[in-house]
């Protein structure tokens, strides 16, 4: 794999990771809030 295509792959993984972190993180924060308010 060339340096260029490695760099390009990095951008894709970074975007997929960021989307998963933001959406998963928000989902988790709602779940935690629901648990707290359920007590």
């Amino acid at each position: 794999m060339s340096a260029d295509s490695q760099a390009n792959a990095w951008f894709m993984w970074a975007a997929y990771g960021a989307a998963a972190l933001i959406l998963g993180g928000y989902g988790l924060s709602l779940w935690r809030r629901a648990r707290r308010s359920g007590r």
Partner: protein
Amino acid sequence: MTPEAERARVVVRRGLVLVAVGLLALAAVYVVAIRYTPVERFQGLPQKIFYVHVPAAWCALLAFSVVGIASILYLWLRDPRLDLFAESAASSGLVFSTVMLTTGPLWGKPIWGTWWTWDARLTFTLFLFFLFLAYRALRGALHDPGERARYSAVVGILGMVLVPFVHLTVYLFPTVHPQPIVLKPSSPSLPWEMLRTLLMSLGAYTILLIGFITTRYGLGRQVEARGGLDVG
């Protein structure tokens, strides 16, 4: 537990189920996009960012439209549940806007050679994001529920008015941002394997959006059922 609190708890539970289903669907989309969708010849791997960026934009604009519609209905019917629903949609829209504004530059850098440019689409999108941040700030600053609901409804409607402009910017001011390849008058100009992945992703993101709005709305209803103050 009062019947109202019990109903709110059921809404929260349904919302969380949708969030879980949406996240699982998103995981499946990742596998399909990375493993089973062809690599575009000219852009290479960064083109696959399209499958997480476009659905985020779709959900953000959909959520902000929902804010506007709920706000109009609130001003008409004066039902506080509509205000709460608008707030839930605005917060969820901001989450998807964050995804859109994060993944966009990650595509722009390898393809355009820059993280950001003041292209009309990008500028309008950023403006819409700031407008809904202001919507959230306004809600936090006003403590009278009626006043908070009225003022934020006006801002929410103004935000909704911007949504069609965001979509049309690529036609009105054509610069560097690609034009729509699916949501356009003619048929989608995308090979089936890519269109399939995009549609799957749109589905997963939309389920997540509905889940986020439902959960947040249910949590707000729970607070109200307890007679608590939620400046949300």
